[in-house]
């Protein structure tokens, strides 16, 4: 399993993982839109990047299939910091097709750090959110299913004490 640690506090979630590839190669997964869209969206919800200006200030725009009544189908990234091939900081959120934020859908910031560990790469992703409501909006698609699934698991978790 590539994920080696996850942690959370009241306003952020952090995941640490290690890949069997050099830092420069892992960086490409973020920098190259064609590679990015192979992994950003969950199965059944592939992301199509219509724009990927990987510079500061720059913006990326992507489209995901989903329930357009609940949230916009477009989302965007606004680059806050890019230090190839080690650090990336992005504001991320639902948007219109031009990449402009949509009122009522707050954006959140995530940061990525890539560190060489011999021939391997340690990646730390920290996702910040202002409140639970923002977190829920941020997740958007699939949220209802995930929520219901988590609820159904809760009884078992509580039963374990």
């Amino acid at each position, binding site marked *: 399993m590539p994920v080696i640690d*996850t942690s*959370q506090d*009241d306003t952020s979630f952090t995941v640490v993982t290690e890949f*069997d590839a050099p830092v420069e190669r892992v960086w490409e997964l973020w920098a190259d839109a064609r590679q990015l869209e192979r992994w*950003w969206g969950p199965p059944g919800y592939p992301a199509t990047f219509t724009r990927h200006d990987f510079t500061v200030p720059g913006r990326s725009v992507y489209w995901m299939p989903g329930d357009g009544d609940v949230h916009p189908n477009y989302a965007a990234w606004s680059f806050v910091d890019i230090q190839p091939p080690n650090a990336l900081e992005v504001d991320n959120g639902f948007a219109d097709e031009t990449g402009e934020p949509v009122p009522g859908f707050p954006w959140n910031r995530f940061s990525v750090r890539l560190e060489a560990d011999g021939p391997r790469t340690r990646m730390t992703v920290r996702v910040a959110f202002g409140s*639970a*409501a923002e977190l829920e909006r941020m997740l958007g698609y699939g949220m209802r299913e995930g*929520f219901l699934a988590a*609820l159904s*698991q809760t009884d078992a978790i509580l039963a374990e004490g």
Partner: protein
Amino acid sequence: MPSRPTDAEVDRIFQALADATRRDIVRRVIGREQRVSDLAGRYEMSFAAVQKHVAVLERSGLVAKRRQGREQIVSPVVATIGRARGLLDELEALWRGRIDRMAAILQEDAAAAHAER
């Protein structure tokens, strides 16, 4: 199935859990019902302060309080605790999925390099 919580409800849950003492109270209550007087004995603060924390948790819907004789008993509300868990579980699942897919792409590289040899 309970209905989807409103934004206000979700915010109350997270505000309630933003405090270490309140998280600890929730942990204990999930284990088994607790008397407010027993909870008060566990923390270095006044009975009134602990009562206030319990009241915040009660308003968030994470715990319920009932009277039993002279004692107040605090019990967990499973559905609400599930909501709080679900949000972060979902975020974690999302990123675990992304990382698995990233690893799969990197593995394809390795396989292709091997095939070239």
